[in-house]
C-alpha cells in the first residue's frame, strides 16, 4: 500500500464524507464541495479521490437505494472508517501545531 498521506483534494473529500455522515454518496459529495468550497469538481475527479481513499482504508462503501433522478441506479454510500477518523484528527493536529509555530501572522 502506498503511503497513507492525504492529498489536499482527498482531505477535502474525506472531510465532506464526514460532514455528510449518513448521506455521503458521489453526487452529494460533489454538491457539498461546490457549496462549501466554491469549486466545480468533475465527477471523475471526485470518484478517483474517493477510490483512493477506499484504497487507503479511510472510507468504505456500500450500496444504497436507487431513485428516479438517478435513472434507477443505486447510490454508493461512503462511510468514515476508524482509520479515516484517526487520519482526519492527525492532519488537523499537524496543521494546528504548524500553524502555532508561525512567529507572527497578521490578522
Amino acid at each position, binding site marked *: 500500500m502506498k503511503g497513507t498521506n492525504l492529498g489536499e483534494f482527498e482531505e477535502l473529500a474525506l472531510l465532506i464524507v464526514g460532514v455528510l455522515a449518513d448521506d455521503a454518496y458521489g453526487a452529494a459529495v460533489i454538491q457539498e464541495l461546490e457549496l462549501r468550497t466554491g469549486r466545480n469538481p468533475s465527477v471523475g475527479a471526485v470518484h478517483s479521490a474517493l477510490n*483512493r481513499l477506499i484504497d487507503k482504508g479511510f472510507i468504505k462503501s456500500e450500496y444504497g437505494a436507487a431513485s428516479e*433522478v438517478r435513472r434507477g441506479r443505486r447510490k454508493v454510500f461512503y462511510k468514515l472508517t476508524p482509520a479515516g477518523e484517526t487520519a482526519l484528527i492527525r492532519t488537523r493536529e499537524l496543521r494546528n501545531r504548524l500553524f502555532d509555530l508561525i512567529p507572527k501572522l497578521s490578522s
Partner: protein
Amino acid sequence: MKKQNNLEPPMWPIRILRWFYDDASVEGITGDLFETYERRLLRLTKTRARFYYFRDFLSMFRPSAIKKMKRNITPNAITMFTNYFKLTIRGVKANPMISLISILGLSISISCCIVLFVFGQQIVTANDFIRDSDNIHLIYSKAIDINNDAFDWGRTPELLGPALFDEAEGAPLMTRYKRSSAVTRYDDLVIEEAIQFVDVDFLDIFSFDLQSGSRQSLKNGQVVLSNDVASRFFGDQDPIGEELMFIINNERIPLIVGAVAKKFPTNAYFDFNLLLPFSIRPQVDDWKDLTHATFIKPSNTNLIQTLMSKQAGYIEAYNSRDPKYKLTSLATIPFSLLSQHEHKIVGISSVVGRENESTLIATIFFGALLLFIACFNYINIALVAASKKLKEIGLRKTVGASRKQLVIQFLSQNIFLSCFAVLSGLLISYLILMPLFSSFFPLDFALDLTDSRLWIFLLLIAVITGLISGGYPAFYISSFSAVNIFSGKQTFGNSRNVLFKLFLGLQFGITFLIIFSGIAFYQNSSYQKGLSWGYDQDGLLIIPVESSEQFLAIRDNLQQRSDVTAIAGATRHVGKNNSAITFDMASEKSTALNYPVSDEYFNTMGIRLFHGRGFDPNMGNDRNSLVVNEAFAKKYFIQELPSSMADENGNRYEIIGVVKDFHYRNFYSPIEAVSFSLSKESENRFIILRTEASNLAQLDGDVRRMWLRQFPDYPYNGYLQADVFDRFFREMAIPTNSLITFAVISILLSSIGLFGLVSLMISKKLKEISLRKVLGARMTDLALLTNKPYVIILGVSMLIAAPLSQNLVEGYLKEVNAYPVAIDYKIIVPSIILLTSVILLTITANLYKVSITNPTETLRSE
C-alpha cells in the same frame, strides 16, 4: 420528476463507460453523473449543464481513474479468446465453401492493397535514401519569359556555383549538375551514354551508396559509374581502375573509373548514369551558359541568406549577356521539398523527378474500392450466415450473455478471419500480383518483408477490415431481442432488407466502374495506336549522325542503293527534337516549333502539302521561307500564300506552303503551330530513308555494317520512325494494364461474393424451391424467380453507375490525353453485358445444383 425529452442527457457516454468499467462501479458513477446533471439543470442553462456532463464523462478517463478500470485481460479472458479462436476454426470447417469464399475474397483484395501500398510508399518515400536532404538546397532562378511573365526556373548560370563558393565562409559544399551525352568506349564497345557533369563535392552532398571504389574519385578526376553502366561495359569484371574513352565535343578524353554506385533504390527519382567532374571540361567564362541545377549544402542555414544577399552582381553579370530569359532574383528550396511536394520550378523535374500526386490518389482510390467490395461481400455473407445462427444467439441471450459479449465474439472472430486473409493476401501478392505489376511498370518493385512499415500496414488492414466487415453484422445481430428470435418475428438477410440491397447495389456499382474504366482505357490505347500520325511512319529508317562528314559519307553511299526510294536530311527531326522560332506579333511574342529540314523531307516523310509549295533549293531566297502546318496557319491567321512574318530579331520569313497537321510528339498534347525551314546541308544531323517496309530490316543491317566499318569510334543509333511513339504507348499501357487487372479482380470478387450469397439464400429457400418443383414449376420459372431481386438491384445500380463512370473516365482521359477515344456505346454496352452476364451466370450456376437434386430428398428430411 418528469423532464421533457430534450432535457435528457445523452446516453452514449454511459454506454462507452460500460465498456471500460465493471458493472458495479458503472452503476454508482452513472447515477452520480445523472444526479449532478439534473441538479445543474436546475441552476444552469441546458447547454452549460450538458457541457459539464460531457466534461464529467471525459474526466472518467483521467489516468488515476483508468487504474480503476476493468482489466479485460484476465486469465479468464484469455481462455475466452482462445475459445473464440477455436470457434472460428470450427466455423470455417463446418462451412468450408462459404468461409473459403469470404476469406479468398478478402485475401485477393488485401493482396491488391499490399501492391498499392508498396506503390504508394514508393511515391511517399521518394528520394528518402539521400540523407540530410533538408540541408541540401537547390538554387533556382526567378526569371521572366518573352512576354514578361514571371516563372521559376531550375537552371542557373554555370558560373554562379563557383562564384558563390569562392566567396562563402564556413566551407559550404556546392555542386552543379549538368546533363550531356558522350560517346563512350571501352575496348570494342562503343555506346552513346548520358553523362552528368558535377562538381567534386557531389558525393559529399548526396549520400549515394557506393558498391566499390572511393568517395574521393571525383576529386581525383576520375569517373563514377552507376551500377547499370558498370555492368553494361564491364559485366562481372571489376571496373575500378579501368580506362574509359569519352568523346566530348569531338575531343577524346580518357578517364579512369574511380567508383561504382550501388544499384539505386526503386524510390530514387534523382540519380545519375556517369558522373564526370566539371574539371575535365574547359572552364566556361561566359555567364550566359547555364547548368541544369546548382545545389549547395551549407554548414549553417544563415549562410544561405548571406550568399543570397550577394546575388545582385551575378544576376547583373548574367542579364548583361542579353539572354533569352532575364533573371530577376535567385531563390533556394530544400531538396526534401523538391522531391516530395508540388512545385512550379520549370525544368527541374528532369533532374529531380517526382511521381504525380494524382497517381497516388488514384492508387489509394482503387485500393479502397477493392477493399470495400470485399468487405461488402463479407458483410452480406456474414448477415445471411448469421441467420442460421439466430437461435444460438437467442439462446445465449436468454442464458445471460450480454450484448457486449456477443459483439466481442463476432468481432474477434472476424479479426481472426481477416488475419488469415492478410496472411494469404501477402502470399498472393508475393507470388502473383507483385511480379505482374512489376512487369507493367518500368521500375522493379519488390516486397520487402523486413520493412516494419509493411507489417504495421498489414496489422492495420487486418483490424480495419475485421472491424468494417464484422462491425455491422456484429452490432446488428446482437441487437435482436431473444423473444423476437424465438417467436420467429425476427427476419432479416433476405432480399427485403434495405441495407442488404444497398450493399449489394454499391458493390455492383463499384465493380461496374472498375470494369468500365478498364474497357475504356483498353479501347483508348487501341484507338490511339490506330490513329493516323499524319504522315507515313512505316518504312522510314532514321540515322542520326554526329558530324557533317558522317552525313555526307553515309548519304552518298546510300543514294546509290536501289531499294532506297527517297532520302532526306534534317537538322532537327520530327519525333526526335526541334528548335523554335519566336515571332513578334502585334501584341505579344509567340513561339512556334521549328524543324530545319532538307527539300526532300516532305516527300520522304509522306507529309502532305496542300497549299503553296515546298522548298526549292534552286531558289536562293528559300533560306528565309517557311512551310507551316494547318495549326500554324490557323493560329496566326495566314490567309494567303506567300505571306510574311517577322521574328523577334526582325528577320522576315516568307510562308510559302501549308502542310496537313501531323503528330510530332505524342497524343498527350494537342497539335500546335509547327514550321519547317530549309536546313543548311552542313548542319544536317539526321538521314531519313524511305524504303519498302519489308526491306527495312535488311537496310538497317546494311547501314549498321557500313557505319561500323567507316566510323568504328561512334555508336550506330539508327532507328525506325514507327518506333518513336513507343515510349508513349508504353506509358499509356501502365494504367491500362493495371485497370484491366483490377477489373478482372473486381469481377472475380463480385462473382465469388454473389456465389456465396446466392448459395446461402438457396439453401434457406430449398424447401420452397423443392415444393415448387414438385408442384410443376419449370427451371426457367425458378431461375426467373431467384434472379429477379438481383436483376433489379443490378439494374438500379447500373443506372446510377453508368453515367457516373462515363463522366469520371471521360474527364480523366480528356485531362491526360489530347486525343482520347470517344466514350460511347462501344464502351458502355460491353461493360453492361460483361457485368450482367457474369452475375446471371453466377446465380444460374447455383441453380444448376438445385435442378439436379431430387426435390423429395429435401422435403423428406425433417
